């Protein structure tokens, strides 16, 4: 056993949440299956873009750390940021402009808005919006899928036109569920949803593997890497609006919106779990986070309807980032009043 110890750390020696380093490792771990699937589906362009985004994110962090005379070369959070930007970029985006756009936007975020957790603007959303401004044509390619969202039963239409290939396991599982579960409530689900959730073949990798995103969310919630207030409020409010009004706008039918399709068609769940509650950009307390989530859901429905946008959610995030300080102001004034009563009574 060592006689003396060079580093003495303070108590406690037990924690209820993972450290930033561990949380970043967990996020990277849950994203890695999506990267592996990109490789197996021969989406090499997307993988190259992810590598470029990773490099740009790490490079900006590295330069920033040198200027700020930090001991570490770069933080794991920079890797997470890079992977997320890469996954949200359409596969056809030209590589060299992409690199320079990312470098300049990330520097801008770091030095104009503040570094990690001090920026009130989500760096991933900001970078992608800048990339969209310079190359919106690459985001709007292959919008065919999105046209189908406006019809009443999008999955049926997509299958009929051969745009979704129904996988074998899809039929088996849906048949099983229809026989043993949905039949009791007098309902039936058509095959195709699971295939769509497994791989929607969208041009943006983050929109593709919905089931993996869902599984990742289970890990993130159970390990307490993310808190559930904002994402759940976001999903609930957006889902509610889609279910009630998605079809009513076009056909005047209330309560017939396809929630599942909306959730899996525009990277909605990916945004909810990985991007919405970015450190420093959302309110601090549960009440504020719930309001933040609900507002995000409403804005998302206004901007993307039931999934008709490749970049709409990034604009949604930037908009709620602007609203977030106001929510925090209200939150703080309520807190101050409450605290004053407590402090006075203790005196």
């Amino acid at each position: 056993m060592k006689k003396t110890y060079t580093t003495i750390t303070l108590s406690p020696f037990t924690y209820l949440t993972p450290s930033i380093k561990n949380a970043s490792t967990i996020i990277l771990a849950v994203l890695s299956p999506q990267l592996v699937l990109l490789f197996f589906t021969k989406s090499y362009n997307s993988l190259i873009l992810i590598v470029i985004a990773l490099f740009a994110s790490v490079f900006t962090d590295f330069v920033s750390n040198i200027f700020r005379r930090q001991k570490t070369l770069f933080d794991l959070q920079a890797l997470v940021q890079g992977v997320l930007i890469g996954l949200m970029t359409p596969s056809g985006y030209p590589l060299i402009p992409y690199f320079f756009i990312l470098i300049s936007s990330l520097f801008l975020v770091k030095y104009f808005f503040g570094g990690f957790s001090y920026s009130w603007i989500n760096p991933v959303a900001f970078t992608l919006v800048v990339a969209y401004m310079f190359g919106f044509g690459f985001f709007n390619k292959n919008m065919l899928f999105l046209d189908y969202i406006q019809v009443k039963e999008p999955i049926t239409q997509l299958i009929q036109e051969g745009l979704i290939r129904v996988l074998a396991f899809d039929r088996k599982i849906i048949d099983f569920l229809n026989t043993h579960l949905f039949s009791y409530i007098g309902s039936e689900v058509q095959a195709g949803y699971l295939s769509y959730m497994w791989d929607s073949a969208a041009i943006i990798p983050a929109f593709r593997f919905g089931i993996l995103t869902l599984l990742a969310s289970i890990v993130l919630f159970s390990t307490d890497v993310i808190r559930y207030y904002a994402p759940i409020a976001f999903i609930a409010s957006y889902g509610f609006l889609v279910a009630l009004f998605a079809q009513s706008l076009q056909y005047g039918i209330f309560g017939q919106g396809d929630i599942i399709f909306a959730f899996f068609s525009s990277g909605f769940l990916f945004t909810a779990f990985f991007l919405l509650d970015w450190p420093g950009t959302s309110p601090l307390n549960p009440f504020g986070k719930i309001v933040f989530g609900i507002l995000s859901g409403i804005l998302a429905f206004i901007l993307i309807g039931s999934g008709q946008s490749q970049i709409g959610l990034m604009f949604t995030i930037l908009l709620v980032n602007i609203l977030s300080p106001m929510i925090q102001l209200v939150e703080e004034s309520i807190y101050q009043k409450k605290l004053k009563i407590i402090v006075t009574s203790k005196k």
Partner: protein
Amino acid sequence: MIAVANLVQYEQKTIETIESAFLPHTAVISLLQDGVYCEPEVSIGENVQEGQIIAKNLKYNAYIHSSIPGKILEFKKYIMPNGRKENAVLIELEGEFSFLGKKREKTQWFNIPTSQRIKDLYRAGILNTFGKTEVLAHQIEKLQNKRSNCLGIRLYNADPSIATEIFIAQHYTEKILEGASLVADSINAKTVYVLYSQDNFIVPSDILVKKFFRYIDVHFIPVKTQYYPQGSLHDMQTNIERLINKEQKKVCQKVNLAIDASTALDTYKALVLNIPLVEKIIHVSGTCFSRDAILKVKIGTPIRSILDELGDFPQKAGKIILNGIIKGRAIAHINGPILGDTKAITVLSKKNIPDQSYSPCMQCGRCHQVCPMLLQPDSLFQHYVLNATISQTVLESSELCTECALCNMVCPSRLPLSQTISLLKDEI
């Protein structure tokens, strides 16, 4: 409140009996008591008896005793468990023990006036380890002007990773009651609240309680110690109010003095058996040992010799912590001695040490949500460390902090929030 099972994530083994630790070949007695340097009353080469006064605390007139019989080797600056170099006296074991293995006659303490009892407590060097370690006699003395006081006794540890107090409460119930009654009598207490772990303690009979607390109202209050935090004075008062005010519809008193089971036991030893503070009961546990133990340890025993007693480490030790994994302190030197306020040694294996690397605050707000006193630990931290502007109310709210360290435990940036608030409190 947080379930203790989420905080102490290793198995806590049951301990049935108390063992005596190996006697140290050389005892290292710190000359610092309650933050005050004590003047030595012995010289190098002199022979001392077990329990003999070796230094005097000039501020409180309290004393430090030799925990073993032997020869004074030297006075030197010694690395204490907290990493600081402090004045200490080294005593080499030699000669016959005065208390160890000897039967002691009980003193008829009820005939002794309070002023004499306080003097005896000062003389015995008894420390109150309920919260921050303080000289018990000094605390009692401060309450002498008040006509009616209220004593609180906690029979479980504030840090749930330690079992010392619960063990003492279970195995020395009568002695604790007698010790506590002496303290209660000394402060002229009209009411005594005994807070116990509802899963680990059997309330003694009324006859036994009345034997020691003849004219004092004693209330036993069960506490759900499977939840954290429960150990601070604030938690004590909350638990008392919950039971007395709400359930029994009576008006409860505010606790003026709070002690724990080990302080009550030390008081018993000092006033009834005339044994000064020379040994401590310590819980040794962790993920590195095949068994946990409760040991009677002589003050000044090097930590290394205690660990050696528990045999080989099945797993490589990563961190040695004194006084619990939540509120304790990682030691700097394995040869550091056991002090008068040591209650536990926890050894964590390397794989059980959590990541403690600091990062800037990520403004997640978890500390706001978890704080039982509704504080904003991150704002107070930013104010203290980075001079961030905060309102006067937020600044004053730091005084409410009970130092439960829940804010530290939920902080992904691993910021020393609780410690910083403690410093801020001292400044205010």
